[in-house]
């Protein structure tokens, strides 16, 4: 008996020997043959005859294959590739993709949620980076502008963004190839506007610059609305920005502002001689009031400035230069090097031999915004935090990777379901490229939704994390670069997440696929899925451990005994420029208060953000000079008792200036290798030549944050210092005590708001950066766990569905609910256990690195890691457990029913 169908299948099989035919063309020729046979049968042939005739007329397959092969080898143009790829996709592929997304809402939600968090991270990092890179890019020939800075080597290593006062003039006289040299003093001044009899006060200080016309030769972007830079060469004049003019005088006619008087810091008078347009571009140079440099010679605090002194460098005195065309900056650096030596020589006239050497250098304008060693200027905007940007970038990348892993895992897990679709598409003539495009376009659609969602999410994050992020951070679609960045994400993410599943799915043989013999459930894709899950959970566990380490170290630092009392102590700074008699009066007021138990006046409390350093010279028995770089404080005698410092040898200083008694710490003795008791009565000499005798040795205390090792330190007696430290009588009614102190303050300093800070707050503020890191680490951890668990949840639900029948049979055969749950959870727990092995070294290494930034850190104990592991296992169990319970308590009748 002739079996037509069998014969046709036999005939079709001969096509498979030839690589030239894709599934579509085989299908096409099959239809041809069937049409032909039908026609022939209709004409009265038997099936046998019809088949023979049709195949003979069709001809030999080998030459056809050869022709097709030549076709394949012909040069492909982009147009033909795209053409053939899109061929089998009908116009509704968008609808189909959308339908696929909606048909599996849980999986789509998991993919979209993860990706939108990852994308939001990327958006914020992008906005931050482009914001920080946009600073001070508008200055004409900005690459010619440099700041001159000072660096130090020797006993004291460091740098200062400023130069000695005489340097700018000296540089101007000697240098060639520089268009302009500008000297600038930055300050933060409050302003009064004289109005009739009284003064209108602006308490919030303005960022002020003392400059002359050279400043505007260096920075040529300023636009003068009224006046020219030359007007600033006279004393007691000021140029202000347009908006300041309006704020001060409420005047819209700017010409009327000219000639009006302003009073800075209660006593410095200046007439407005110029109006400068507001700076619209992003800049660190956000000065609003430009007082003429020569005004300083008449200021009440003019004695603070010695225009001949090469030895002092104050960070507020900065110097900017503008190079001429064709001048290499190296030639300026050469000259500055020579001037450094001369400068050291000039300030060496008195005192013992030099132990620290100065080197002046140029710093490009573009570097100012990013150099966190030098910073901008006092009270200026903080520089961009590159480590913060890097940390955020790493976190964003990590979140994106975890989200992409979810995508890949869920897509390959579902492969079996999609196999039928692949088979059908292939049979219908879909090429591999077409299928690839189809799957990637589905990824594209999901990514597009995620990107759309990430916009409000980023906005939310910008508000929620405003303390880490620069305040100018905004999301604007008018920014072309931002739009391009989003488009870039739209291209990269689908490729990243869609390529592997698409390649794997499109490789199915349609025969297998249609018979549901999905190859994807096979070991290779399951192995990949397991590997990716391990990667995800390694990251998550490492993050948990890292977040734990950060939080624990912070609380360890805050609670550590620092060697001095900080409870119930408040500090307040009186204006250093004001009359000393006012401080005496203020002290007298405080002494009357019942809330204040003890008062001390000093240069700073035992611990402080920042430091004062100098050099102490000690001459040993052989008359050898042993210079040591030391930190120092000065104040009255109550310092030791008020702060609870402990003397290990000797006694407190005597309140007599002429005796020159000092206290040193154990670290100083250790540095000189002298026992504390032997240090008593020894003579030492300060770098300036001042002589001291050691009266006592204090037990070491942490005079700076725990980032730094305890340094040699000394304390000298000096009365009436400007910083008041008050011990409160009791801690039960602090608000009342603060109230009393504020009243006393306003009696003496009625024009200034009191600035009271608690010493324990000051200590806490040392770790502000760490606290931010902690918030960041906690958020990153929470998000990473969230996205990873979403993925796990998806995989668990997939497994539960896949094993429905198995579970049913097991239950029928007597398996308990617990047994089923264990069965379903075991594999995931094993994976998470495996991740733990990878996570521990990562977290341990990262933790060590981070803790090495502290001179004193908590021990990195094993239980931190164990806790991280346990926590992740608990979270994973909860995630998987939900699905496991659902599957385990299902009635086997339902799962085994055969539809």
């Amino acid at each position: 008996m002739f079996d037509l169908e069998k014969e046709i299948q036999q005939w079709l099989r001969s096509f498979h020997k030839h690589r030239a035919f894709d599934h579509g063309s085989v299908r096409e020729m099959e239809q041809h043959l069937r049409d032909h046979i039908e026609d022939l049968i209709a004409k009265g042939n038997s099936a046998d005859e019809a088949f023979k005739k049709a195949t003979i007329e069709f001809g030999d397959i080998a030459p056809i294959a050869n022709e097709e092969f030549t076709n394949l080898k012909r040069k492909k143009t982009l147009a033909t590739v795209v053409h053939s790829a899109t061929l089998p996709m009908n116009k509704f592929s968008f609808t189909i993709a959308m339908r696929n997304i909606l048909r599996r809402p849980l999986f789509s939600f998991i993919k979209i949620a993860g990706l939108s968090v990852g994308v939001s991270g990327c958006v914020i990092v992008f906005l931050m980076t482009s914001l920080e890179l946009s600073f001070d890019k508008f200055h004409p020939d900005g690459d010619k502008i440099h700041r001159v800075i000072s660096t130090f080597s020797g006993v004291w290593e460091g740098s200062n963004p400023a130069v000695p006062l005489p340097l700018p003039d000296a540089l101007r006289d000697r240098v060639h190839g520089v268009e302009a040299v500008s000297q600038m003093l930055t300050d933060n001044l409050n302003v009064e506007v004289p109005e009739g009899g009284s003064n209108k006060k602006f308490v919030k200080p303005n960022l002020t610059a003392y400059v002359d016309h050279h400043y505007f030769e260096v920075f040529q972007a300023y636009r003068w609305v009224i006046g020219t830079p030359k007007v600033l060469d006279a004393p007691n004049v000021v140029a202000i920005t347009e908006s300041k003019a309006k704020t001060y005088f409420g005047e819209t006619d700017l010409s009327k502002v000219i000639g009006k008087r302003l009073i800075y810091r209660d006593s410095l008078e200046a007439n407005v001689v110029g109006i400068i347009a507001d700076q619209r571009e992003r800049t660190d140079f956000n000065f609003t009031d430009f007082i003429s440099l020569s005004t300083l010679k008449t200021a009440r605090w003019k004695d603070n400035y010695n225009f001949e002194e090469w030895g002092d460098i104050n960070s507020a005195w900065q110097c900017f230069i503008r190079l001429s065309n064709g001048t290499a900056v190296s030639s300026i650096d050469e000259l500055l090097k020579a001037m450094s030596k001369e400068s050291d020589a000039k300030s060496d006239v008195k005192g013992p031999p030099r132990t620290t050497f100065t080197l002046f250098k140029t710093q490009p304008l573009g570097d100012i915004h990013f150099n966190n060693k030098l910073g901008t200027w006092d009270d200026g905007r903080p520089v961009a935090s590159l480590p913060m940007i890097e940390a955020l970038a790493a976190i964003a990348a990590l979140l994106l990777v975890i989200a992409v892993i979810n995508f890949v895992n869920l897509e390959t897990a579902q492969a079996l379901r999609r196999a039928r679709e692949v088979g059908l598409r292939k049979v219908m003539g879909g090429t591999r490229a077409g299928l690839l495009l189809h799957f990637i376009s589905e990824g594209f659609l999901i990514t597009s939704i995620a990107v759309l969602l990430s916009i409000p999410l980023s906005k939310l994050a910008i508000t929620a994390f405003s303390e880490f992020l620069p305040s100018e951070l905004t999301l604007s679609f008018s920014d072309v670069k931002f739009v391009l960045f989003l488009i870039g994400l739209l291209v990269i993410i689908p490729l990243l997440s869609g390529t592997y599943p698409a390649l794997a799915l499109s490789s199915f043989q349609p025969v297998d696929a249609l018979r549901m013999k999905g190859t994807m459930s096979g070991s290779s894709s399951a192995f990949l899925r397991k590997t990716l899950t391990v990667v995800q959970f390694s990251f998550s566990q490492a993050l948990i451990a890292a977040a734990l380490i950060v939080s624990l170290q912070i609380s360890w630092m805050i609670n550590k005994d620092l060697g001095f009392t900080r409870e119930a102590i408040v500090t307040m700074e009186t204006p250093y420029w004001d009359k000393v008699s006012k401080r005496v009066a203020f002290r007298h007021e405080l002494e009357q208060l019942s809330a204040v138990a003890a008062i001390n006046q000093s240069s700073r409390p035992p611990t402080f953000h920042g430091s004062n350093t100098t050099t102490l010279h000690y001459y040993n028995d052989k008359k050898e000079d042993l210079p040591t770089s030391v930190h120092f404080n000065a104040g009255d005698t109550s310092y030791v008792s008020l702060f609870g410092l402990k003397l290990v040898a000797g006694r407190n200083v005597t309140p007599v200036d002429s005796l020159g008694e000092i206290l040193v710490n154990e670290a100083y003795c250790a540095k000189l290798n002298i026992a504390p008791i032997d240090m008593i009565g020894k003579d030492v000499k300060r770098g300036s030549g001042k002589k001291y005798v050691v009266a006592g040795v204090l037990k070491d205390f942490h005079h700076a944050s725990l980032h730094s090792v305890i340094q040699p330190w000394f304390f000298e007696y000096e009365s009436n210092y400007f910083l008041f430290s008050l011990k409160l009588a009791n801690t039960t009614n602090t608000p009342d005590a603060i109230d009393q102190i504020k009243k006393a303050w306003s009696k003496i300093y009625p024009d200034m708001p009191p600035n009271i800070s608690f010493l324990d707050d000051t200590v806490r503020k040392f770790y502000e950066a760490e606290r931010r890191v902690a918030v960041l680490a906690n958020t990153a951890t929470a998000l990473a766990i969230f996205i990873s668990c979403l993925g796990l949840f998806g995989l668990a639900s997939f497994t539960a569905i896949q094993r429905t029948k198995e579970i049913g049979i097991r239950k029928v055969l007597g398996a308990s609910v617990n047994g089923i749950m264990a069965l379903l959870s075991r594999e995931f727990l094993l994976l998470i256990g495996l991740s733990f092995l990878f996570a521990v070294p990562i977290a341990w290494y990262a933790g060590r690195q981070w803790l090495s930034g502290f001179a004193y850190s908590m021990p990195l104990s094993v239980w931190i890691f164990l806790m991280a592991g346990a926590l992740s296992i608990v979270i994973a169990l909860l995630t998987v457990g939900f699905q496991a319970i659902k599957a385990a308590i299902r009635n086997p009748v339902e799962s085994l029913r055969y539809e």
Partner: protein
Amino acid sequence: MIPKSLTAASTKLIILGILREGNSYGYLIIKKVKELSGGKMNYSDGMLYPVLHHLEKEGFIKSEWVMEDEQRPRKYYALTTQGKNELIAEREHWVNVHSVLEAIWQLSPKK
């Protein structure tokens, strides 16, 4: 019977020409060719397909799978604009060949 080389050379024109009439699929196209040539052109049916695929790759024709209810899916081919232009050009070539041949028949044999 027309020799193979000539058949091969004219296939492109023939297919494009048939498709000018309207969209069609492989089996119908070949049926039409056989009809028009009155059996003078000897094709093996299968050889049509590489030609169709080649023309498609060149962009002269485009294809689409069409599934009508209860029927087999069929791959329909249609002429593209580029294909229409190509057909005009191709026709021009054959008309030229034809006129050369016409001129040749006009030559009288020398004795």
